[in-house]
């Protein structure tokens, strides 16, 4: 039986970062879908199963922090425990402890270093 690809949901409003991330994740054989805001990410997670979420903090409509809080409140234990990695352009605003309190499993900073991003994803997904 062929291995099923791990599925990653990316919540990110910049199409440039979406495109870059898609090709980097594809290189490691992960499949990826993108949501352009927190609301869309939440809806997509409810509809579909994913193995991990990369969540930008600054997004229109619903930001990454709010979206993560909503995800942790979902009833389905598989959905509400999904690993979420925060992507932040304003790391100075929050401490690592803050990110844990918001419900994130880890965080990475922008500008993105894709070697680091992949290593962080692999650490969680194997």
């Amino acid at each position, binding site marked *: 039986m062929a291995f099923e690809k791990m599925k990653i949901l990316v919540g990110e409003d910049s199409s440039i970062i979406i495109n870059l991330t898609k090709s980097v994740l594809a290189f490691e054989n992960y499949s990826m879908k993108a949501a352009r805001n927190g609301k869309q990410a939440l809806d997509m997670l409810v509809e579909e199963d994913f193995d991990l979420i990369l969540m930008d903090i600054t997004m229109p409509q619903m930001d990454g922090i709010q979206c993560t809080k909503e995800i942790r409140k979902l009833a389905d234990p598989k959905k509400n425990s999904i690993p979420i990695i925060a992507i932040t352009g304003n790391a100075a605003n929050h401490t690592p402890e803050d990110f844990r309190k918001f419900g994130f499993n880890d965080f990475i900073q922008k*500008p993105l270093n894709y*070697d680091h991003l992949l290593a962080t994803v692999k650490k969680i997904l194997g």
Partner: protein
Amino acid sequence: MKSKIILIVEENEQARKLFEHCIGQLASVESVATAKEGLAFLANKAVDLILVSQQLPDLDGPGFLQKVRVTASPDCPVIATSAFAKEQEKPYFLNQGFADLLTKPIRPKDLILCLQEHLKKETKAPTAVQMARVFDPVPLQQLLKYSPPETLQGIYAEFIQECTELLQPSKLDSTIPITEDLLRALHTIKGNSGTLGAEKLFICVKQSEFLGRQGKAVEFTESLTHLKAAITEFETFLKKEGKFYGI
């Protein structure tokens, strides 16, 4: 002086060995044989002075200097060495932006004196924007591991277009209203420019976002003028030099 680092870019092995030996008494020495190797080295490490041959196999001296200026250091002294130039041609080299010219064969004593003189010169503390390179090649080198050049070409083009569009409505002759939309746009450009290695643009946009968040309308408008200039500069750089870096 020993704490200083000098990079030698010299295609002739014998000359390179001689330079290494002489300069080794004065400073730490790194040496490479091609322009490409030199630029790759500089992408990861800052040096205090560069000695570059004018007869490199892959790039001429002025071409190398220009690439150093945009991708490595805007002010590190670069000294030209040449087997063909005459001492009288020094003004031409200074005009090109070289700090000095050494004509081969070079006497070790002249080499040491010349290097000492240029290493001693005090430089004024430059601002972050002046220090910044137009392009930091490291993020692109990393991205090229994962994505084909044509995909990245498209992404860089999209980035330029995004920058241009986002700042389109702002007429820079009057004070620009600081809106949440504009700040959000700047935040996006900030993340993207840093990720793509547009270093100077990244520093400019970071400054604009900061001033905007502080509500400093006049300084904010002025910073957008610098940002627009940085966008144009990066666009021109990509057109002219993108191929050299693999996109």
